[in-house]
């Protein structure tokens, strides 16, 4: 009996993982092609903007890594938003590192001592807590500030709660009594990537964690989370300001009036 429940769970988790990944990839691809379908008829760079591509890349890199534009306004929002995104990126890096190091060790390419792994694990826990705290700070701003509360709707709270729960389940797994069997988790994930079915580690926090991540992947392309992709196409940021020197061509009007 217990084995069959485990099998059902296996099927459910694997389907959720694969379906969400497919939805994510197709969704993002659809959104990018939908954006690219509409052209930029005119140069609408938001000035002061450099007239060279190098300057444009520098500005966008500033916006991408330091949130320069955001920092011109609300400092509280900027600091918490930046911490949230940076810690999220670091945590994702740790996940990748975990899998790669596991593979490398299995193939006898490298050997990482348990002390170093333990140290990295502690660092990851601390960063995870910082991530959760920054999310709480953002949530407080959203609900307490009367301006934000006015335009914040169900889905805005839903997404922030979803990410919050992913963070919480992730950090809980770092507590030894709630921790799943780590090698089993790693072999399960490698199995998922290489299409070799492995049993799902039976741990509440782990299963909730990947289920929530799957939901996040599904909603990502169709909600405001698409800002992560759309940013790179923003015409006010990615167009050099050189319309006097270089003639920008409007693809739906190439007749210049002569």
């Amino acid at each position: 009996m217990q084995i069959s429940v485990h099998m059902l769970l296996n099927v459910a988790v694997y389907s959720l993982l694969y379906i969400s990944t497919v939805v994510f990839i197709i969704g993002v691809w659809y959104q990018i092609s939908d954006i690219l379908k509409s052209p930029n008829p005119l140069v609408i760079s938001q000035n002061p903007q450099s007239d060279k591509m190098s300057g444009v890349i520098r500005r966008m890199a500033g916006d991408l890594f330091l949130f320069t534009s955001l920092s011109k306004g609300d400092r509280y929002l900027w600091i918490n938003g930046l911490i949230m995104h940076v810690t999220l990126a670091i945590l994702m890096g740790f996940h990748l590192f975990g899998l790669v190091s596991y593979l490398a060790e299995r193939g006898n390419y490298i050997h990482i001592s348990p002390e170093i792994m333990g140290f990295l694990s502690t660092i990851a826990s601390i960063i995870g807590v910082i991530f959760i705290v920054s999310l709480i700070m953002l949530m407080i701003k959203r609900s307490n500030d009367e301006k934000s509360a006015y335009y914040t709707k169900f889905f805005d709270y839903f997404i922030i709660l979803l990410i919050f729960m992913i963070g919480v389940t992730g950090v809980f797994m770092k507590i030894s009594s709630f921790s799943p069997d780590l090698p089993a988790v790693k072999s399960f994930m490698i199995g998922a990537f290489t299409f070799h079915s492995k049993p799902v580690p039976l741990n509440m926090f782990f299963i909730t964690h990947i289920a929530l991540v799957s939901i996040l992947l599904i909603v990502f392309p169709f909600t405001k989370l698409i800002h992560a992709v759309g940013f790179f196409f923003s015409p006010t940021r990615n167009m050099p300001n050189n319309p006097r020197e270089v003639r920008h061509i409007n693809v739906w009007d190439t007749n210049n009036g002569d």
Partner: protein
Amino acid sequence: MKPNEKIMAMLKSTETQFTPPELTGEIKIPSVCVGASSGNRPFVMTNKEQLKTLGYPTNGLVDNWKEVFLKKMAEMLDKYRSVKLFLKICSKCGNCADKCHFFLGSGDPMNMPVARQDLMRKVYKRYFTFSGMLGLPGFNNLLDTAELSEELLVLWYTYFYQCTECRRCSVFCPYGIDTAEITMAAREILNSIGLVQKNAHVLVNNEITTGNNFRMSPLAFVDIIESIEDDLREETGIDIKIPIDKHGADVLMVLPSADYFAPVNIESLNGYAKVFHQAGISWTLSSYAADGANFGLFVHNYENMKLINSRIWKASRELGVKRVIAGECGHMYRVMSSYSNTMNGPFDWLSPKYPIPQHICEFTLDLIKRGALKFDKTANDHLTPTMHDSCQIARGSAFGGKFGQFEIPRAIIRATCNKFVEMDEDTIREKTFCCGAGGGLLGDEQLPVKLRGATPRMQAYTKVKRENGVNFITSICAYCKVQFTHLLPHFGYTEEEVGGVHKLVSDSIILGVKNI
């Protein structure tokens, strides 16, 4: 009742009077007050002939407006990546919320840029995305979508005409979302179903049919310029010419038509004439392209904007000039410098040695640097000027390098005045506040809205006025100048406290002695 009669009754303004707040010199973020600015709307255009010229429905709201609305919206999304992308990617961080001068002046939450965009975003989500199309009508609030309704149209007509398309919100947006692009698309959608705002579109019509805002004939234009020449001669004792339609001149000067009528703008025209006279460079105005103003910019109606703009370049070709210089006007310069080359270029009959078009401030500062102009700074000693950057120049276009649009006018002010004081750094340069009347918000019926929009700028001005004795707002935009002359008296100041950069040039330039 026909949909048109119903909507026209709903669009009547309920607010026509507004007392500006007391000026404290401090820009405070107001507490949210729902509906504070919901009572004022601009007049709807009803002149059938003008509507026909513009290519819009002539009998008010069309009967099948929902169909037309969605068709036009789909067209806007297909033509403008900006509109589609900006509707998709807003993450509602709220950084823009307290950056709009209309929100700061009114506290109406619909004037937060994010809420203004949401008016269109809700429709986009409902009719153009999976989640909206899946959603049942009862879930609009949950999904943050909206059905098309007359009430929604009223909100659109109210709040998309409380945006001056100044792009200040875009500076602070982490993704560069520009509410102006959304506003322009929304206005064109409203136009396509027959709800055409009157004042700005009368001007578009006039520009298409006569080439200028004031419907003046070429003869009237010559007359006006002659009287300005007479005044100049009387003032200076020197025969300073303002040539019209002079073939083979070096420079075609393009001005907004306010420069021929409003006294505060004529002062700048005098300045240009004196600069050309002193530098000995031959120039001309064109009676065919007397007006560079282009109100087609303020709605996403590319064809009208292009048509209006083409006059300038036809005139430059016909007159055989080598270069085109734009006068002091914000949106005119944006269309000429950022859009012209795409719409009507390339301009291979003009000399490639100069930027096409050049800005008059670029031109004047270059002459100053080369020592061709000399000034008696003491002539401006009664003034302590400050610089009000104009939004369409500060954030929409540029001249003289990346920060030229900020540095060049300031350099001219410093060359012509002994004193100069900057306003608070959050209110100048790229973070400058709109005067409150840009973006086609020029009707007097919108006075309450314009007063609210001007409040942040007035507070910043009050601060330097009290602390540093500033008594003059300098601007390089015809609309800022006209707006301030109208609104300053409402705030208890005099209308003489505003003028162009070239008014300072005009008052202090030493004429007659050739320095080259």
